[in-house]
């Protein structure tokens, strides 16, 4: 069900929501997260134990408290999701549920006339509320057991995406590694091999930014990448193959999505790089029948395919706050196209020899530097 509110009402509802959270959750832990030296975010965790999850996932991005953060993320435990709507929003429950749906979105009309999504509420399934107003973001979670802490913790990327959606920055789904100040941005949906290649490259001496999500920053003619998260995900098979080199990685859990293992690699802090120059796009494809990896320069159509992957795989994961083909989608996509259009694009056909793949990537990266 879709509901639209006046901005003044949305403001009042937000204040009521904050009072409700504070009243029902006696203790709070406060953390500050530095997003690529661009924005500082305060995280208020009213959910017992959640702060420790944030610390594990974002250990290299935690920073000292500041008085005026750019945004605040509120996280609390919300067990009665269906009741949450009438209780906090003052909306008649029977009317609200009259269409029989379990997924509700609430919008408000801003002073500029634009409609903005302020809440998406799921009253079954994963069951949760995602809410934002101004520079404040709210996550109400119903149950945060070991099987879904990663998923829900990772969900903060939706807030990060919005906070960083500025003209010169983008929070995108992609990986980045490099050598001697020459980075490659890897774009692929899940299963393309970018995590394995980027982690293996880091273990073999590459400078590392991220294996999954990163911040792109445009400055003058240059593009750079910065990390946020300090964890990686690997398939059990790839973990076995990298076991000896991953001796400093700490096992965090199993992803509920594809059964991948999650590791905290903050012990590899010396390998992480911020504002790392990006010089080329790389589109990895796994070819299990190949005996050696191969790099080819992409045609314009193949480059377009790569841009679609990075833009769409990012947008499609930001399924709240009006990101359903709305104006912000278009703005993000256009900005991303502009950022990436000046880069050459290469396709790397990955073979089962993961060390051979890294050697191939090394040769490509050094050739880009020349």
């Amino acid at each position: 069900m879709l509901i639209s509110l006046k901005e003044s009402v949305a403001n009042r509802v937000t204040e009521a929501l904050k009072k409700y959270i504070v009243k029902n959750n006696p203790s709070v832990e406060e953390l500050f997260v530095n997003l690529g030296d661009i924005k500082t975010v305060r995280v208020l965790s009213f959910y017992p134990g959640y702060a420790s999850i944030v610390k594990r996932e974002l250990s290299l991005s935690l920073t000292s408290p500041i008085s005026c953060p750019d945004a605040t993320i509120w996280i609390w435990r919300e067990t009665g999701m269906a009741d949450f709507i009438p209780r906090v929003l003052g909306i008649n429950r029977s009317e609200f549920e009259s269409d029989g749906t379990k997924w509700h979105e609430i919008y408000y009309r801003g002073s500029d006339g634009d409609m903005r999504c302020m809440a998406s509420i799921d009253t079954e399934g994963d069951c949760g509320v995602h809410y934002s107003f101004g520079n404040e973001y709210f996550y109400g979670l119903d149950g945060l057991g070991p099987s879904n802490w990663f998923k829900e913790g990772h969900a903060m990327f939706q807030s990060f995406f919005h906070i960083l959606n500025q003209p010169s920055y983008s929070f995108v789904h992609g990986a980045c590694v490099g050598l001697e100040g020459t980075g490659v941005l890897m774009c692929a949906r899940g299963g393309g091999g970018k995590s394995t290649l980027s982690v293996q490259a880091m273990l073999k001496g590459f400078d590392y930014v991220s294996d999954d999500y990163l911040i792109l920053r445009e400055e003058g003619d240059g593009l750079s990448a910065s990390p946020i998260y300090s964890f990686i995900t690997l398939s059990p098979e790839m973990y076995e193959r990298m076991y000896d080199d991953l001796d400093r990685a700490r096992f965090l859990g199993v992803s509920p999505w594809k059964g991948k293992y999650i590791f905290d690699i903050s012990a590899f802090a010396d390998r992480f790089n911020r504002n790392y120059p990006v010089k080329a796009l790389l589109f990895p494809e796994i070819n299990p029948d190949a005996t050696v990896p191969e790099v080819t320069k992409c045609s314009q159509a193949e480059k377009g395919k790569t841009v679609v992957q990075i833009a769409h795989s990012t947008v499609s994961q930001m399924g709240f706050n009006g990101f359903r083909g709305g104006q912000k989608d278009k703005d993000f996509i256009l900005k991303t196209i502009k950022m990436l259009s000046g880069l050459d694009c290469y396709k790397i056909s990955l073979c089962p020899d993961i060390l051979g793949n890294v050697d191939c990537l090394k040769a490509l990266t050094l050739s880009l530097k020349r």
Partner: protein
Amino acid sequence: MESRNYQLNDAKMFADVTDGTAIVINSATGIYYGMNSFGTSIYENLQEGSSTADVLSAALQLPGVPENFETSFEAFIASLVEYEIMVPGEGTSSRPAVLDPAVAKEDDFIPLCTEYQDVQELLFADPIHEVDVDEGWKPE
């Protein structure tokens, strides 16, 4: 329906097919489009050189194809042209089209291309509801 060959309007459109779904982005506007599985299959055949007549002929051979299939096929092709996703190709060629009957059946033999347009258009059609925290929502 006049038989034609079409190709991706690659001067303007970026496209990718993953897991049987075509996603197309208009690089000039940032609008993106998604096709259902049957639409994607037709799009891929056109991209590989089949003419509209080739695709229509293959589709009409599928078991269970509805009598009015040509209408939905024409509407699909018209949407690809209207969205500027595909443009008429130079010259004409023929290539037997390959369509999976299970994919066609799953989508009820209706190929679709959806424009992910601004949700605001949908919302502007929805009235603004007066909400009072004390009194509750009063539907207009």
